[in-house]
């Protein structure tokens, strides 16, 4: 299994898609931070009002909002599409691994897709933190109360919040890739999911007029609401209206487990479908 993961990593670490959709995070953040520091060094403008320690720490962990945002998830889905569906385009699936160990290949793809993204995001996060620290020193000093423990706690929590959306995006992109055997089709379906999530209240209100009970049930069962709910909880509120007198308000843990179940289901379906696929 470890060999399968190593092979997958060797395959993808220098692929153009990995540069554009994964390594882009630390590279872009590094360039932005260098730009900001250079601007700060040569600018004659006032640095602005001082930040509190809590604000400074929250700002330094801003990067973890990217994977939960629409554009961030498009990038994740795009990378997962290349990882899972690329082999169909290169015509390499059937040649490299016996049918009995196909599950290893899917598992290795999961490991590499998730691993590369986590590595890139952690690297980008550390670069951002370093840039923020250097910027504060450039302006004078760090706000009082910024401690390593406080920074670590906030960054850890922000990273943990981002993990489920990343897993969810990879799970469905992987499933779409195996079903459609196409990078483009996988991307289109993955984008559709993000768009549906964004429009969920509107869609729900529209269908509520025709079939209120069914709409309520679908909202509670399908993963879209739970993704939105987790995002809303992370921001402090969790109420999504979907009818004139109807709202869905579930706990963070309910949505967490519902989404976990969907991720496991999508991952299992991907494995089962690939194991049974006739690659000729």
């Amino acid at each position, binding site marked *: 299994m470890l*060999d*399968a993961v*190593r*092979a997958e990593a*060797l*395959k993808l670490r*220098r*692929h*153009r898609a990995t540069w554009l959709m994964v390594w882009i995070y630390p590279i872009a953040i590094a360039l932005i931070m260098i730009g900001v520091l250079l601007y700060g060094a040569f600018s004659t403008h006032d640095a602005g009002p001082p930040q509190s320690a809590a604000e400074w720490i929250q700002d330094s962990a801003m990067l973890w909002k990217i994977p939960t945002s629409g554009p961030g998830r498009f990038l994740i889905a795009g990378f997962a599409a290349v990882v899972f569906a690329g082999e169909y385009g*290169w*015509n*390499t699936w*059937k*040649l*490299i*691994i*016996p*049918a*009995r160990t196909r599950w290893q290949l899917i598992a290795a793809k999961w490991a590499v897709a998730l691993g590369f993204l986590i590595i890139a995001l952690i690297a980008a996060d550390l670069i951002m933190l370093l840039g923020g620290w250097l910027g504060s020193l450039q302006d004078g000093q760090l706000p009082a109360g910024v401690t390593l423990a406080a920074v670590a706690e906030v960054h850890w929590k922000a990273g943990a919040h981002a993990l489920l959306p990343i897993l969810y995006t990879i799970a469905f992109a992987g499933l779409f890739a195996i079903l459609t055997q196409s990078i483009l089709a996988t991307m289109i379906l993955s984008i559709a999911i993000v768009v549906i999530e964004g429009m969920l209240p509107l869609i729900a209100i529209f269908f509520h007029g025709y079939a209120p009970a069914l709409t309520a049930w679908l909202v509670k069962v399908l993963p879209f609401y739970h993704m939105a709910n987790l995002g809303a909880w992370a921001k402090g509120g969790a109420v999504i209206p979907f009818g004139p007198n109807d709202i869905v308000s579930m706990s963070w843990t309910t949505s967490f487990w519902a989404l976990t179940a969907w991720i496991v289901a999508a991952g299992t379906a991907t494995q089962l479908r690939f194991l049974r696929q*006739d*690659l*000729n």
Partner: protein
Amino acid sequence: MSTSEPSGTPALELRALGKTYGRGAKGKRAVDDVSLSVRHGEVYGFLGPNGAGKSTTIRMALGLIRPTDGEALLFGRPVSDKQALRRVGSLVDGGTFYPFLSGRDNLRVLARTQGHDGTRIEQVLERVDLAADAKRKVKGYSTGMKQRLGVAAALLDDPDLVILDEPANGLDAAGIQDMRNLLRGLAADGKAVFLSSHLLHEVQQICDRVAIVHKGKLLRESSIRDLLDHGQALRVEAEPLDTAETALQGKWPVDRAQDSLRVQAPRADAPAIVRQLVEAGADVFRVGPDDQSLEEIFLTMTRDTDA
């Protein structure tokens, strides 16, 4: 490599192997009841026109796809046996590789996927004459280079059985000769070589035994010598051909073969045939054994099946 199986065990054995793609009315029978065996130290040719089921058979023999019926055995063990499979090197579908990786990195990926360390990568690159181009991305390789990389991939783990699907595709004359020497060398080392090809002239030169498949069915399995030996037949070149044919028809079975006659007769009858032709007023240009090539036999067999 371990050779722990009992002596005489074939390196590859297919038993009533069958494969149907799809289900129900839409199902397509790609391979039907194919049985054959490949021994150590021989080069075995697997011949068939396009769509005959050669690649599907090879994929089942490698465990890449599951057969619908029958079984494939490697060194006497099921194809699912990991140890047996590790003793097999293969080139399927012309060796498709990751175009964005170099030749060397492709072999590294393959070595990792197969669970070995790839210590022989440089050696096999040298053997197929690709060491100088190993750093280049595969997307810049010619068809022949990709083919050679495919062979390198097949030899990566010093296999006891080498399965090659159309290994001479895209190779120039010199490349084909190199390939011929390489395959004969492998057989001389005691390895079993199973190759599919439509280059019948090459197969005739390289292989010890062949199997001919058509529309998924095995038409014949035989040694090259037996296949080419049609017993007693003579090829007669004479003019006018109609006069010659009429003169011989009474005594021997005669078939027209393009601008000559094929006469079912032993070599000892050659003087009598010449006398008969001269008496009939035909000019005789040549009377000799009928050396039918593998290509002619192959075409006859597959045509007969079509009919």
